């Protein structure tokens, strides 16, 4: 199946130079004296890189067979990270290079979005907000509840997040995975 430039829209998954890509931005440019073009920004779903291409109106690209499924993160054996589709019970695994920043936020049993291309997993997105446990941080100053200052804290996935001074080892904290920012205590 092919999509023509007139069907291009954000989020459409297409094959580009052999890789599945997602349209991030689609701009129609019609020079006064020229034919219409689509200047398109893509995200390569495998490498995560952004690339720009310009097509003349009427060109078409092959659709990429890409699905985004909610899955449960099961465990890691150190080389592979294992996930399960809770509906089909089908299991999938990914190597470290495909895990991206999900490595920093996923703990066993968490829900996440796994992207499949031709039924093979290619990337994982953690939920926007996760709850993690503080395993190491300097003792905070007693009585500082305003959260004006900050200190680094290591969480149970190994990620380091800036937290308010009152946060202590063993606390559960909420983190925004898009910005790696502390958003509150759980």
């Amino acid at each position, binding site marked *: 199946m092919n999509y023509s430039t007139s069907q291009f829209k954000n989020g459409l998954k297409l094959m580009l130079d052999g890789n599945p890509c997602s349209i991030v931005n689609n701009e129609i440019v*019609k020079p006064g004296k020229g034919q219409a073009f689509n200047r398109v920004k893509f995200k390569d779903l495998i490498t995560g890189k952004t690339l720009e291409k310009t097509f003349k109106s009427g060109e078409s690209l092959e659709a990429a067979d890409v699905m985004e499924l909610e899955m449960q993160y099961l465990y890691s054996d150190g080389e592979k990270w294992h996930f399960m589709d809770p509906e089909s019970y089908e299991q999938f695994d990914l190597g470290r290079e495909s895990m991206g920043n999900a490595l920093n936020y996923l703990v066993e049993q968490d829900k996440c979005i796994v992207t499949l291309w031709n039924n093979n997993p290619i990337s994982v997105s953690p939920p926007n907000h996760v709850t993690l446990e503080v395993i190491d941080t300097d003792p905070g100053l007693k009585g500082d509840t305003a959260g004006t200052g900050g200190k680094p804290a290591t969480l149970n996935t190994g990620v380091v997040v800036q937290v308010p001074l009152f946060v202590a080892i063993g606390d559960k904290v909420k983190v925004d995975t898009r910005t790696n920012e502390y958003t509150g205590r759980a």
Partner: protein
Amino acid sequence: MNILGVPNYPQMSSVKEKLLQHQNRIRTIRDFFYSHSIVEVITPSLLISPTTDVYIDSIEVSVNHALLKSSNFYLHTSPELEMKRLLAKGSGDIFQICQVFRDNEHGSINSNEFTMLEFYRLGIDMHQLIEEIQELLIALGKNDIVKKISYAQAFFDYAEIDILNSNFEDLKNILKSHGLSADYDWIEDMQMVLFVHLIEPKIKTFPVCFIYDFPKQQAALAKIDGLVAHRFEMYINGTEIANGYQEIETANEYRDRFETELDKRKSLSKSIGSIDEVFLADLKDGLPPCSGVAIGIERLFNSLSL
């Protein structure tokens, strides 16, 4: 409806504000031209011939059915030829603000109908016309720093391409090296896709940018001088706002340019109209040496509201 049964128009004041702002800007433009003794004209929008431009499509309209004298006209896509007929008849400097109509142009910054400001100035060249446009921008309160760069220099600086000396095969290879389709029939179309792909994103950083001396293959109705045509465009943050020429002057040159465009339309299986012979006849003694420009008013005004 409110409690008294009167419709509420909560946006009334902001609509009126916008209308007044638009009115003031149009008035500023008119005052600018009046103060330079440039005469305002109104030319017909219903034309006998469609435009010959390969990539501009006229909208055809059928009239006078009930009078049993039905005939077809084309809405003007720009007032250019009608204004040039006036120039040929001795009008002197003229300007016009009018609605123009184009088929197959529709999108976030394109529309089948838009407002065009077009003006012609006798005895000045492309660079002097660019200076006058800068004065008009200042009159409209747009005081941004202006970048002015030739088409060839823009390609050298932003893409390391010698665009004027790249032939058909060179451009195909450049397109392929950028992972773009090289399926184009004409060199000018490849120059254009490279401009859209490589240059426009770079000139987005300039609030106002004039690109001048286009490759001769993109001369349109501008005078050719060696490898370039004295044609320019104005871009505001990377969006095309204006297109101007140091105008060709003789009927023969116009006929040649029209025929070239019609041949291209034929090879693309697009609708073909007849060449406007009335226009060519009016040009029998030629156009006085002049430069002219068309400016998209909505795009220009949108850039002022930013």
